[in-house]
């Protein structure tokens, strides 16, 4: 019990303190895992590269008209990673490409998570026909193969950065929705929901105050895995020629490389680096996501 002299904390302040303490605990558990830290390190590296692109490599290096390097030249002292078919430095393309690849991955994930979380909450929380209809729609959407759908949608909408973000966001929400739904269902069973109802809390209040904060940790872990998938998807769609022609991404680099026959001419510096970057970023997000899942899901932790 607090003594009379000490300042009394409001319930909100108490709740905030407790939440901060639990975040600190989660971070400690996360930091104890080597894989999560390695993933975080790699991610930070790429974010720094993406944000610092103007500093690391002049944007003039992207201008085709100003390029004066050799066509598909191998790595040299002047061009560390060689040149592309226009004579531009592959390293410059790689650095600037990180911006688009990461941006599209993150933006598409935001859309996917918003749709997925909303539909997952609704189908998990509401019983009756609302819940069942949203669940069925999620299931049916899940069955449709994503690339034919993405190709069809992209062909109809046309090429462009905004469009590709929409395409990826709209095709990847179902798995998130299912996960959120199962989380919501299990939380709904718990006692404090009953208590909230007993004291007259309305539905939206319950969802906002009780269900959502407890679902958020899993949402967070799932988000990192969704970003990984989104980056992979952007690379694939750009490779197939559905990307934004005015912006370079790792996927469009690989598309160009393939079109000019970099494989057969053995221009490995054009094909390998963008792929390696994609693999590293996806691995980073995956390792972070898996480490988070293990920290937040006590059942997995116990298995260690």
């Amino acid at each position: 019990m607090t003594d009379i002299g000490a300042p009394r904390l409001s319930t909100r302040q108490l709740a905030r303190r407790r939440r901060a303490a639990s975040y600190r605990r989660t971070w400690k558990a996360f930091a104890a895992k080597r894989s999560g830290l390695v993933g975080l390190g790699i991610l930070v590296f790429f974010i720094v590269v993406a944000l610092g692109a103007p500093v690391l490599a002049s944007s003039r290096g992207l201008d085709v008209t100003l390029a004066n390097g050799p066509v598909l030249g191998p790595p040299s002292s002047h061009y560390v990673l060689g040149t592309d078919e226009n004579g531009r430095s592959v390293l410059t393309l790689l650095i600037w490409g990180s911006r688009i690849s990461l941006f599209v991955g993150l933006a598409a994930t935001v859309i996917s998570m918003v749709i997925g979380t909303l539909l997952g909450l609704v189908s998990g929380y509401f019983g009756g026909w609302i819940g069942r209809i949203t669940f069925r729609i999620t299931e049916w959407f899940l069955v449709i193969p994503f690339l034919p759908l993405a190709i069809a949608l992209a062909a109809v909408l046309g090429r462009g950065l905004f469009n590709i973000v929409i395409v990826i966001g709209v095709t990847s929400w179902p798995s998130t929705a299912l996960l959120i739904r199962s989380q919501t269902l299990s939380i709904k069973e718990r006692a404090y929901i009953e208590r909230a109802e007993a004291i007259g809390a309305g539905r939206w209040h319950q969802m906002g105050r009780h269900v959502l904060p407890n679902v958020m940790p899993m949402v967070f872990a799932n988000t990192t895995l969704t970003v990984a998938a989104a980056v992979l998807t952007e690379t694939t769609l750009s490779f197939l020629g559905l990307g934004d022609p005015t912006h370079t991404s790792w996927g469009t680099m690989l598309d160009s490389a393939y079109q000019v026959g970099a494989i057969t001419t053995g221009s490995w510096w054009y094909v390998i680096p963008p792929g390696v970057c994609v693999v590293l970023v996806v691995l980073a997000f995956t390792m972070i996501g898996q480490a988070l899942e293990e920290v937040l899901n006590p059942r997995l932790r116990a298995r260690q």
Partner: protein
Amino acid sequence: MSLVADPGLIAEGEETGSGRQHGYLSYVGVKVLGSIGSLLFMLVVNFFLFRVLPGDPARSLGRGHINTQAQLDAFNKTYGLGQPLPQQFWTFLKNTAHGNLGTSIQYRLPVSQLIWDRLWPTLLLVGISTILSTVIGVYLGIRGAWDRGSVFDKVSTGASLTLYAMPEWWLGLMLIAGLGVGFGFVPGLFPTGGLHSAGVNPSSLHGILDTTWHLTLPVVTLALAYLAEYSLIMRSSLLDELGEDYLQTARAKGLRDVLVRNRHAVRNALLPTTTVIALNIGFVVSGAITVETVFSIPGLGLLSTDAIGVPDFPVLEGTFLVASGGVIAANLVANLIYGWLDPRVRT
């Protein structure tokens, strides 16, 4: 002779055992109905995408071969354009049921014929790689979980994680570069693309071997891409099972370790893996699209990617229909297999 004084006393809610036989059949019924629902939903999505979303379907679908008003009128009549939407949808359903999927803008051929011609390379590719990736992936996962922490486990898990993070078509490009083109003084061992060598009769024995040789790298690419995921899932679910009590019962009975693993633990751990394999079928089909493109295999995948540039909407619509329909059918089969494996879902 019963050791219990009065068997009649034991009546704690006896469950009716007779529901068992009907259990699986009713499960099949439910799943088939669900698949029909998915199919209808997919048709609605298709209709929405290609007929409603673009401003003028006649222009997008009929581009290139509608030049006169008469042709436009005939086109509109076939597709029911200009009628109210529900009627258009009905016309669309009728046409699809009859196999009329429109005419390709690029090739001036019926889409259904194009699809039929290109079907079997895709089926071969997807079928063989699914079988290979499932069998090898499951084995690697079992071995990794059973010998947890061993060198095999660490290498296998690390390799799986890396393969999982890789776009499958990029892996294909690497394989072409390494094993198709060759590097340095090492010559290429496999063709860099295509399905047949020139001048070889595909139906002859030589032709079959030739086709196999051409399909090797694409199949390896797709198989590697997905066995990684299956091995990770199998390992994870087997590790989950290893803590279960019924394994101690099995060991106490005097069962050999291998049988405890295969007959009991693996049998249960297969369940989540089957679910993942079922969910993955859509991704395998998606992967086939990119792998066919990279290896120039004349299947449905290459057909759709070639159609992107034009854009050849009738072909895109047709391949979308066929791909989705195929995935829905494969999912149904996977669900039925799951229902056979896990008796708990049948009730």
